[in-house]
Protein backbone atom coordinates (compact mmCIF):
# COMPACT_ATOMS: atom_id res chain seq x y z
CA UNK A 1 0.00 0.00 0.00
CA UNK A 2 1.40 3.38 -0.93
CA UNK A 3 0.42 6.74 0.39
CA UNK A 4 -0.51 9.46 -2.01
CA UNK A 5 -1.24 12.95 -0.91
CA UNK A 6 -3.01 14.54 -3.82
CA UNK A 7 -6.07 13.45 -5.67
CA UNK A 8 -5.20 12.77 -9.26
CA UNK A 9 -7.84 11.51 -11.62
CA UNK A 10 -7.49 11.21 -15.38
CA UNK A 11 -10.58 13.10 -16.71
CA UNK A 12 -11.35 10.50 -19.39
CA UNK A 13 -11.89 7.88 -16.67
CA UNK A 14 -14.46 9.89 -14.74
CA UNK A 15 -17.55 8.75 -16.71
CA UNK A 16 -16.74 5.12 -15.88
CA UNK A 17 -16.06 5.86 -12.21
CA UNK A 18 -19.33 7.77 -11.97
CA UNK A 19 -21.17 4.58 -12.87
CA UNK A 20 -19.94 2.91 -9.68
CA UNK A 21 -22.13 3.50 -6.66
CA UNK A 22 -21.85 3.07 -2.93
CA UNK A 23 -23.67 -0.25 -2.30
CA UNK A 24 -25.15 1.09 0.94
CA UNK A 25 -26.25 4.45 -0.47
CA UNK A 26 -26.96 3.54 -4.10
CA UNK A 27 -27.84 7.10 -5.18
CA UNK A 28 -24.29 8.21 -4.51
CA UNK A 29 -21.50 7.56 -7.01
CA UNK A 30 -18.04 6.93 -5.65
CA UNK A 31 -16.97 10.19 -7.30
CA UNK A 32 -19.65 12.08 -5.38
CA UNK A 33 -18.53 10.36 -2.18
CA UNK A 34 -14.99 11.57 -2.73
CA UNK A 35 -13.47 8.16 -2.08
CA UNK A 36 -11.56 8.00 -5.38
CA UNK A 37 -8.10 9.44 -4.68
CA UNK A 38 -6.45 8.73 -8.01
CA UNK A 39 -7.18 7.00 -11.30
CA UNK A 40 -4.51 6.74 -13.98
CA UNK A 41 -3.55 4.66 -16.97
CA UNK A 42 -0.31 2.76 -16.46
CA UNK A 43 0.32 1.23 -19.86
CA UNK A 44 -2.94 -0.61 -20.59
CA UNK A 45 -4.06 -0.93 -17.02
CA UNK A 46 -6.10 1.58 -15.09
CA UNK A 47 -4.86 1.93 -11.53
CA UNK A 48 -7.44 3.28 -9.12
CA UNK A 49 -6.78 4.26 -5.53
CA UNK A 50 -9.71 4.53 -3.17
CA UNK A 51 -9.88 5.52 0.48
CA UNK A 52 -12.33 4.11 3.05
CA UNK A 53 -14.93 6.32 4.68
CA UNK A 54 -14.51 4.39 7.96
CA UNK A 55 -11.77 1.81 8.71
CA UNK A 56 -14.27 -1.01 8.97
CA UNK A 57 -16.51 0.07 6.09
CA UNK A 58 -17.66 -3.23 4.55
CA UNK A 59 -18.60 -1.42 1.31
CA UNK A 60 -14.96 -0.98 0.28
CA UNK A 61 -14.46 -4.55 -0.94
CA UNK A 62 -17.64 -4.34 -3.01
CA UNK A 63 -16.66 -0.95 -4.41
CA UNK A 64 -13.28 -2.37 -5.45
CA UNK A 65 -14.95 -5.25 -7.31
CA UNK A 66 -17.48 -2.91 -8.90
CA UNK A 67 -14.71 -0.65 -10.25
CA UNK A 68 -12.93 -3.62 -11.83
CA UNK A 69 -16.21 -4.77 -13.39
CA UNK A 70 -17.12 -1.30 -14.68
CA UNK A 71 -13.83 -1.14 -16.59
CA UNK A 72 -14.13 -4.75 -17.69
CA UNK A 73 -17.41 -3.80 -19.38
CA UNK A 74 -15.46 -1.50 -21.70
CA UNK A 75 -12.63 -4.02 -22.09
CA UNK A 76 -10.17 -2.22 -19.86
CA UNK A 77 -8.23 -3.94 -17.12
CA UNK A 78 -8.33 -2.14 -13.78
CA UNK A 79 -6.42 -2.58 -10.53
CA UNK A 80 -7.76 -1.14 -7.29
CA UNK A 81 -5.82 -0.43 -4.13
CA UNK A 82 -6.73 1.10 -0.80
CA UNK A 83 -5.00 4.18 0.63
CA UNK A 84 -5.50 5.44 4.18
CA UNK A 85 -3.80 8.81 4.06
CA UNK A 86 -4.99 11.49 3.94
CA UNK A 87 -8.02 10.20 5.82
CA UNK A 88 -11.39 10.69 4.19
CA UNK A 89 -13.57 13.57 5.40
CA UNK A 90 -17.20 14.37 4.72
CA UNK A 91 -15.94 17.62 3.13
CA UNK A 92 -15.05 15.50 0.10
CA UNK A 93 -18.68 14.71 -0.63
CA UNK A 94 -19.52 16.88 -3.66
CA UNK A 95 -22.46 19.35 -3.72
CA UNK A 96 -24.15 16.98 -6.17
CA UNK A 97 -23.56 14.15 -3.72
CA UNK A 98 -25.08 16.12 -0.85
CA UNK A 99 -28.17 16.79 -2.94
CA UNK A 100 -28.47 13.12 -3.84
CA UNK A 101 -28.19 12.16 -0.18
CA UNK A 102 -30.97 14.52 0.88
CA UNK A 103 -33.22 13.33 -1.90
CA UNK A 104 -32.58 9.74 -0.83
CA UNK A 105 -33.70 10.58 2.71
CA UNK A 106 -30.32 10.94 4.40
CA UNK A 107 -29.60 14.37 5.89
CA UNK A 108 -26.25 15.70 4.65
CA UNK A 109 -23.47 16.40 7.19
CA UNK A 110 -23.49 19.77 8.95
CA UNK A 111 -20.29 21.66 9.70
CA UNK A 112 -18.19 20.41 12.60
CA UNK A 113 -19.57 22.75 15.23
CA UNK A 114 -23.22 22.30 14.27
CA UNK A 115 -22.67 18.56 14.10
CA UNK A 116 -21.44 18.49 17.70
CA UNK A 117 -24.38 20.61 18.82
CA UNK A 118 -26.82 18.25 17.12
CA UNK A 119 -25.24 15.02 18.34
CA UNK A 120 -24.22 16.03 21.85
CA UNK A 121 -26.11 19.17 22.76
CA UNK A 122 -29.54 17.99 21.61
CA UNK A 123 -29.81 21.12 19.43
CA UNK A 124 -32.64 20.88 16.93
CA UNK A 125 -30.82 21.83 13.73
CA UNK A 126 -30.76 18.75 11.54
CA UNK A 127 -33.39 19.28 8.84
CA UNK A 128 -35.97 16.55 8.29
CA UNK A 129 -35.47 15.07 4.83
CA UNK A 130 -39.20 14.51 4.51
CA UNK A 131 -40.76 17.89 5.44
CA UNK A 132 -37.79 20.22 5.96
CA UNK A 133 -38.60 21.00 9.58
CA UNK A 134 -35.73 21.51 12.02
CA UNK A 135 -37.87 20.26 14.90
CA UNK A 136 -35.97 16.97 14.97
CA UNK A 137 -34.47 14.90 17.77
CA UNK A 138 -31.55 12.54 18.02
CA UNK A 139 -32.70 8.95 18.48
CA UNK A 140 -29.35 7.18 18.32
CA UNK A 141 -25.75 8.35 18.00
CA UNK A 142 -25.13 5.41 15.70
CA UNK A 143 -27.37 4.47 12.79
CA UNK A 144 -27.73 1.78 10.14
CA UNK A 145 -24.04 2.15 9.27
CA UNK A 146 -21.03 3.59 11.11
CA UNK A 147 -21.23 6.85 9.14
CA UNK A 148 -24.78 7.72 10.19
CA UNK A 149 -26.82 8.68 13.24
CA UNK A 150 -30.57 8.23 13.61
CA UNK A 151 -32.96 11.18 13.96
CA UNK A 152 -36.70 11.61 14.09
CA UNK A 153 -38.81 14.55 12.98
CA UNK A 154 -41.23 15.73 15.68
CA UNK A 155 -43.47 17.46 13.15
CA UNK A 156 -44.08 14.76 10.55
CA UNK A 157 -42.73 11.89 12.72
CA UNK A 158 -40.45 10.63 9.95
CA UNK A 159 -37.40 8.74 11.24
CA UNK A 160 -34.33 9.42 9.10
CA UNK A 161 -30.57 8.95 8.93
CA UNK A 162 -28.14 11.81 9.34
CA UNK A 163 -24.71 11.50 7.74
CA UNK A 164 -22.31 12.44 10.54
CA UNK A 165 -19.64 15.04 9.96
CA UNK A 166 -16.21 13.41 9.83
CA UNK A 167 -13.20 15.71 9.93
Amino acid at each position, binding site marked *: MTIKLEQHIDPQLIPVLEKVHDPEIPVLSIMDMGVVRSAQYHDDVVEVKITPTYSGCPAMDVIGDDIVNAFKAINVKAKVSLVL*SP*AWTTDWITPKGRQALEKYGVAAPLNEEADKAAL*LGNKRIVKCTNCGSSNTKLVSQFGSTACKALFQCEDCLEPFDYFKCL*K
Partner: protein
Amino acid sequence: MKNENKIQYIYGIADNALILGQRLSELCGHGPSLETDIATTNMALDLLGQTRSYYQYVAQLSGEEKTEDDIAFLRTERQYKNVLLVEQPNVHFGYVITRQFLYDVFHLLLLQELQNSNDEMLSAIAKKAIKEVSYHQRFSSDWIKRLGDGTDESREKVQEAVNDLWKFTDELFHMTDDDKIAVESGIGVDVTTLKDKYHQIVKEILEEATLMVPEVKWFQKGGKQGVHSEHMGYLLADLQYMQRTYPNMKW
Protein backbone atom coordinates in the same frame (compact mmCIF):
# COMPACT_ATOMS: atom_id res chain seq x y z
CA MET B 1 14.58 -1.61 13.94
CA LYS B 2 14.16 -5.26 13.03
CA ASN B 3 10.89 -6.27 11.40
CA GLU B 4 10.24 -8.82 14.13
CA ASN B 5 10.38 -6.12 16.82
CA LYS B 6 8.16 -3.88 14.76
CA ILE B 7 5.63 -6.67 14.29
CA GLN B 8 5.54 -7.30 18.05
CA TYR B 9 5.12 -3.60 18.65
CA ILE B 10 2.15 -3.48 16.26
CA TYR B 11 0.56 -6.51 17.94
CA GLY B 12 0.69 -4.56 21.20
CA ILE B 13 -1.63 -1.99 19.64
CA ALA B 14 -3.65 -4.01 17.15
CA ASP B 15 -4.53 -6.92 19.44
CA ASN B 16 -6.32 -4.50 21.77
CA ALA B 17 -8.51 -3.41 18.88
CA LEU B 18 -9.21 -7.00 17.84
CA ILE B 19 -10.06 -8.32 21.29
CA LEU B 20 -12.17 -5.32 22.31
CA GLY B 21 -13.86 -5.51 18.90
CA GLN B 22 -14.61 -9.19 19.54
CA ARG B 23 -16.07 -8.42 22.98
CA LEU B 24 -18.32 -5.74 21.51
CA SER B 25 -19.33 -8.03 18.64
CA GLU B 26 -20.69 -10.49 21.20
CA LEU B 27 -23.37 -7.91 21.95
CA CYS B 28 -24.70 -7.97 18.40
CA GLY B 29 -28.39 -8.72 18.83
CA HIS B 30 -28.00 -8.74 22.63
CA GLY B 31 -27.64 -5.04 23.47
CA PRO B 32 -29.96 -3.74 26.19
CA SER B 33 -31.75 -1.52 23.67
CA LEU B 34 -31.74 -1.21 19.90
CA GLU B 35 -29.69 2.01 20.02
CA THR B 36 -26.99 0.65 22.31
CA ASP B 37 -26.91 -2.58 20.32
CA ILE B 38 -26.24 -0.64 17.13
CA ALA B 39 -23.71 1.57 18.89
CA THR B 40 -21.62 -1.24 20.36
CA THR B 41 -21.57 -3.18 17.10
CA ASN B 42 -20.66 -0.05 15.13
CA MET B 43 -17.76 0.54 17.49
CA ALA B 44 -16.79 -3.11 17.04
CA LEU B 45 -16.78 -2.56 13.29
CA ASP B 46 -14.49 0.47 13.60
CA LEU B 47 -12.10 -1.48 15.82
CA LEU B 48 -12.06 -4.51 13.54
CA GLY B 49 -11.47 -2.23 10.56
CA GLN B 50 -8.48 -0.72 12.33
CA THR B 51 -7.28 -4.21 13.21
CA ARG B 52 -7.37 -5.18 9.53
CA SER B 53 -5.20 -2.21 8.57
CA TYR B 54 -2.61 -3.14 11.20
CA TYR B 55 -2.63 -6.86 10.38
CA GLN B 56 -2.39 -6.26 6.63
CA TYR B 57 0.69 -4.22 7.37
CA VAL B 58 2.11 -6.97 9.63
CA ALA B 59 1.44 -9.54 6.90
CA GLN B 60 3.39 -7.39 4.49
CA LEU B 61 6.27 -6.91 6.97
CA SER B 62 6.50 -10.59 7.86
CA GLY B 63 7.59 -11.46 4.34
CA GLU B 64 5.98 -14.86 4.70
CA GLU B 65 2.85 -15.92 2.90
CA LYS B 66 0.75 -14.80 5.79
CA THR B 67 -2.63 -13.10 5.58
CA GLU B 68 -4.49 -10.85 7.98
CA ASP B 69 -6.78 -13.81 8.72
CA ASP B 70 -3.90 -16.04 9.80
CA ILE B 71 -2.79 -13.34 12.20
CA ALA B 72 -6.25 -12.80 13.65
CA PHE B 73 -7.36 -16.42 13.86
CA LEU B 74 -4.40 -18.75 14.03
CA ARG B 75 -2.18 -17.51 16.81
CA THR B 76 -2.11 -19.16 20.22
CA GLU B 77 -3.15 -17.39 23.41
CA ARG B 78 0.39 -16.47 24.45
CA GLN B 79 0.97 -14.77 21.11
CA TYR B 80 -1.74 -12.16 21.66
CA LYS B 81 -0.32 -9.01 23.23
CA ASN B 82 -3.51 -7.20 24.24
CA VAL B 83 -3.90 -5.71 27.70
CA LEU B 84 -6.04 -7.55 30.25
CA LEU B 85 -8.61 -4.74 30.34
CA VAL B 86 -10.02 -5.37 26.86
CA GLU B 87 -10.55 -9.12 27.33
CA GLN B 88 -12.72 -8.71 30.44
CA PRO B 89 -16.24 -10.09 29.91
CA ASN B 90 -19.52 -8.26 29.21
CA VAL B 91 -20.84 -8.62 32.76
CA HIS B 92 -23.60 -6.03 32.28
CA PHE B 93 -24.11 -2.88 30.23
CA GLY B 94 -22.52 -0.64 32.88
CA TYR B 95 -19.50 -2.93 32.82
CA VAL B 96 -19.29 -2.81 29.03
CA ILE B 97 -19.43 0.98 29.06
CA THR B 98 -16.85 1.27 31.84
CA ARG B 99 -14.42 -1.04 30.06
CA GLN B 100 -14.98 0.95 26.89
CA PHE B 101 -14.49 4.28 28.60
CA LEU B 102 -11.31 3.22 30.40
CA TYR B 103 -9.88 2.00 27.11
CA ASP B 104 -11.18 4.82 24.86
CA VAL B 105 -9.44 7.52 26.88
CA PHE B 106 -6.14 5.67 26.60
CA HIS B 107 -6.72 4.71 22.96
CA LEU B 108 -7.28 8.28 21.84
CA LEU B 109 -4.19 9.57 23.70
CA LEU B 110 -2.13 6.79 22.13
CA LEU B 111 -3.34 7.50 18.59
CA GLN B 112 -2.77 11.23 18.96
CA GLU B 113 0.90 10.41 19.54
CA LEU B 114 1.09 7.55 17.05
CA GLN B 115 0.07 9.86 14.23
CA ASN B 116 3.53 11.48 14.61
CA SER B 117 5.25 8.12 14.12
CA ASN B 118 7.99 8.19 11.51
CA ASP B 119 6.50 4.99 10.14
CA GLU B 120 4.23 6.25 7.35
CA MET B 121 1.76 3.41 7.60
CA LEU B 122 1.32 3.55 11.37
CA SER B 123 0.87 7.28 11.14
CA ALA B 124 -1.79 6.88 8.43
CA ILE B 125 -3.70 4.23 10.37
CA ALA B 126 -3.60 6.41 13.50
CA LYS B 127 -4.86 9.51 11.68
CA LYS B 128 -7.77 7.53 10.30
CA ALA B 129 -8.58 5.86 13.63
CA ILE B 130 -8.48 9.09 15.65
CA LYS B 131 -11.68 10.25 13.98
CA GLU B 132 -13.45 7.05 14.93
CA VAL B 133 -12.11 6.70 18.44
CA SER B 134 -12.95 10.34 19.30
CA TYR B 135 -16.57 9.41 18.65
CA HIS B 136 -16.26 6.26 20.78
CA GLN B 137 -14.91 8.27 23.67
CA ARG B 138 -17.74 10.77 23.40
CA PHE B 139 -20.23 7.92 23.45
CA SER B 140 -18.74 6.04 26.41
CA SER B 141 -18.12 9.23 28.46
CA ASP B 142 -21.68 10.29 27.84
CA TRP B 143 -22.96 6.94 29.13
CA ILE B 144 -20.65 6.97 32.16
CA LYS B 145 -22.26 10.27 33.13
CA ARG B 146 -25.78 9.04 32.47
CA LEU B 147 -25.32 5.86 34.48
CA GLY B 148 -23.25 7.41 37.26
CA ASP B 149 -25.55 10.36 37.69
CA GLY B 150 -28.61 8.20 37.02
CA THR B 151 -30.63 5.98 39.36
CA ASP B 152 -29.30 4.42 42.57
CA GLU B 153 -29.07 1.09 40.82
CA SER B 154 -27.25 2.37 37.75
CA ARG B 155 -24.80 4.31 39.89
CA GLU B 156 -24.11 1.31 42.10
CA LYS B 157 -23.51 -0.97 39.14
CA VAL B 158 -21.23 1.38 37.26
CA GLN B 159 -19.27 2.19 40.44
CA GLU B 160 -18.76 -1.54 40.99
CA ALA B 161 -17.52 -1.85 37.42
CA VAL B 162 -15.09 1.05 37.87
CA ASN B 163 -13.78 -0.49 41.12
CA ASP B 164 -13.45 -3.87 39.50
CA LEU B 165 -11.75 -2.77 36.27
CA TRP B 166 -9.47 -0.18 37.80
CA LYS B 167 -6.79 -2.76 38.60
CA PHE B 168 -6.30 -3.31 34.86
CA THR B 169 -5.61 0.33 34.02
CA ASP B 170 -1.99 0.54 35.09
CA GLU B 171 -0.88 -2.03 32.54
CA LEU B 172 -1.81 0.41 29.78
CA PHE B 173 1.29 2.42 30.70
CA HIS B 174 3.80 -0.44 30.94
CA MET B 175 6.52 -0.67 28.33
CA THR B 176 7.62 -3.98 26.85
CA ASP B 177 11.09 -4.42 25.36
CA ASP B 178 9.58 -4.09 21.90
CA ASP B 179 7.84 -0.88 22.96
CA LYS B 180 11.17 0.53 24.08
CA ILE B 181 12.88 -0.38 20.82
CA ALA B 182 9.98 1.16 18.87
CA VAL B 183 10.25 4.40 20.85
CA GLU B 184 14.01 4.56 20.32
CA SER B 185 13.61 4.18 16.58
CA GLY B 186 10.94 6.87 16.40
CA ILE B 187 8.04 4.70 15.30
CA GLY B 188 6.49 4.03 18.70
CA VAL B 189 4.82 5.95 21.51
CA ASP B 190 6.25 6.20 25.02
CA VAL B 191 3.04 5.29 26.86
CA THR B 192 4.48 6.25 30.25
CA THR B 193 4.12 9.88 29.18
CA LEU B 194 0.34 9.45 28.71
CA LYS B 195 -0.40 8.41 32.28
CA ASP B 196 -0.94 11.81 33.91
CA LYS B 197 -3.17 13.06 31.15
CA TYR B 198 -5.13 9.81 31.26
CA HIS B 199 -5.82 10.08 34.94
CA GLN B 200 -6.77 13.71 34.60
CA ILE B 201 -9.37 13.00 31.89
CA VAL B 202 -10.75 9.89 33.59
CA LYS B 203 -11.00 11.65 36.92
CA GLU B 204 -12.82 14.63 35.45
CA ILE B 205 -15.48 12.47 33.84
CA LEU B 206 -15.92 10.17 36.83
CA GLU B 207 -16.39 13.20 39.07
CA GLU B 208 -18.92 14.69 36.69
CA ALA B 209 -20.68 11.33 36.84
CA THR B 210 -20.66 11.59 40.66
CA LEU B 211 -18.54 8.44 40.82
CA MET B 212 -15.60 7.78 43.12
CA VAL B 213 -12.11 7.31 41.75
CA PRO B 214 -10.86 4.06 43.28
CA GLU B 215 -7.82 4.19 45.50
CA VAL B 216 -6.35 0.86 44.56
CA LYS B 217 -2.65 0.39 45.06
CA TRP B 218 -2.40 -3.07 43.53
CA PHE B 219 -2.62 -3.57 39.80
CA GLN B 220 -2.83 -6.63 37.62
CA LYS B 221 -0.64 -7.11 34.57
CA GLY B 222 0.47 -9.75 32.10
CA GLY B 223 -1.48 -9.27 28.89
CA LYS B 224 1.31 -7.38 27.19
CA GLN B 225 3.59 -10.38 27.78
CA GLY B 226 0.93 -12.76 26.52
CA VAL B 227 -0.09 -13.95 29.99
CA HIS B 228 -3.85 -13.52 29.95
CA SER B 229 -6.76 -13.84 32.34
CA GLU B 230 -9.00 -16.90 32.49
CA HIS B 231 -11.46 -15.22 30.11
CA MET B 232 -9.11 -15.13 27.14
CA GLY B 233 -9.26 -18.83 26.28
CA TYR B 234 -13.02 -18.78 25.94
CA LEU B 235 -12.90 -15.61 23.89
CA LEU B 236 -10.35 -17.12 21.50
CA ALA B 237 -12.31 -20.35 21.19
CA ASP B 238 -15.24 -18.29 20.00
CA LEU B 239 -13.12 -16.07 17.75
CA GLN B 240 -11.10 -18.86 16.14
CA TYR B 241 -13.71 -21.58 15.86
CA MET B 242 -14.65 -21.12 12.20
CA GLN B 243 -11.11 -20.74 10.86
CA ARG B 244 -9.86 -23.74 12.84
CA THR B 245 -12.81 -25.95 11.97
CA TYR B 246 -12.84 -25.00 8.28
CA PRO B 247 -9.20 -24.12 7.54
CA ASN B 248 -8.74 -21.41 4.88
CA MET B 249 -12.45 -20.62 4.74
CA LYS B 250 -13.31 -17.22 3.26
CA TRP B 251 -16.32 -15.02 3.84
